[in-house]
């Protein structure tokens, strides 16, 4: 039994090693483009809302805690607690996805979705549509005008900031897809846990889906500073 468990954990980690490289490619692409188009990426990054990213970080790390507690509950044989912690993890994961949906909607309203109707100047041209007024509007205008001068025209600004938003949606979208897969697995775990299947002798599914969940958390731990934070000052 001990050996079975060890090989299951080992196998899960091999899968996660491939996932590290999967996300790694995107982080690499982001780094190169961010370095090349630093000024446009900085301004684009500031248009995503820091508050939502920070709240989501707390929510996701919280869900990692409840997931870890669920593993502990299974290991010490508290069957009811396993189910409770799994449901809590699922709820927090859903809250994360809900907040992400709000953020995506904001980007849609601001014409920040690459491809159709993309326009970095939409908000300063239509301030009421983006809830912009007064000093915030003036600051935004000044910043974009300054950027346009530096980069050499609005065409370049729009082209390069579409690159930022393509990476933003690509990276957070792939992360969200992993969250959806994780949430589906959690629903299955909860169902099995209701039947009382997870005991100190057998809890490999809780442990391994837990590993997956924590991995997705780690991806966000890097996405948050890279996409939201490093151009705020």
């Amino acid at each position, binding site marked *: 039994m001990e050996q079975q468990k060890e090989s299951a954990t080992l196998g899960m980690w091999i899968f996660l090693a491939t996932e*590290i490289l999967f996300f790694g490619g995107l982080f690499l692409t982001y*780094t190169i483009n961010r370095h090349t188009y630093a000024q446009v990426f900085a301004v684009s990054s500031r248009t995503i809302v820091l508050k939502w990213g920070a709240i989501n970080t707390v929510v996701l790390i919280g869900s990692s805690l409840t997931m*870890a507690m669920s593993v502990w509950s299974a290991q010490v044989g508290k069957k009811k607690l396993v189910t409770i912690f799994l449901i809590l993890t699922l709820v927090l994961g859903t809250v994360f996805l809900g907040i992400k949906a709000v953020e995506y909607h904001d980007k849609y309203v601001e014409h920040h979705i690459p491809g159709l109707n993309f326009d970095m100047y939409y908000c300063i041209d239509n301030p009421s549509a983006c809830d912009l007024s007064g000093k915030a509007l003036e600051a935004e205008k000044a910043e974009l005008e300054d950027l346009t001068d530096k980069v050499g025209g609005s065409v370049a600004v729009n082209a390069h900031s579409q690159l930022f938003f393509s990476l933003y949606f690509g990276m957070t979208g792939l992360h969200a897809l992993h969250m959806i897969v994780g949430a589906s697995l959690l629903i299955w775990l909860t169902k099995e846990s209701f039947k009382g299947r997870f005991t100190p002798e057998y809890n490999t599914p809780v442990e391994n889906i837990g590993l997956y969940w924590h991995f997705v958390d*780690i991806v966000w731990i890097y996405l948050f500073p890279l996409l939201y934070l490093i151009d705020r000052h």
Partner: protein
Amino acid sequence: MSEHIVSPKLYILIFVTLMVFTGTTVYAATVDLNQYFAGLNVIVALVIATCKATLVVLFFMHAYYSTKRTQLIIIAGVFWLAIMLFMTLGDYASRPWDTH
């Protein structure tokens, strides 16, 4: 090797530490550190993120208590990532003709 059970106390301690790191990184982002050293803001953000990730891997994911074989896989995963990142970035950095 018998299974090691991590206590809820340690889990909560790790969670609190992760929250403190999150607060620190948000605060650090609002301060212009680049005036002291170009790129310092990015470095601080990534160092904090790496500390957080390490805590998650070691304790939430039990890597600290895993067998040597499992630990080797984890290190290999990170090592391969490092190869991809540093060799590619090194290549980009050493191409004077490619000025974009």
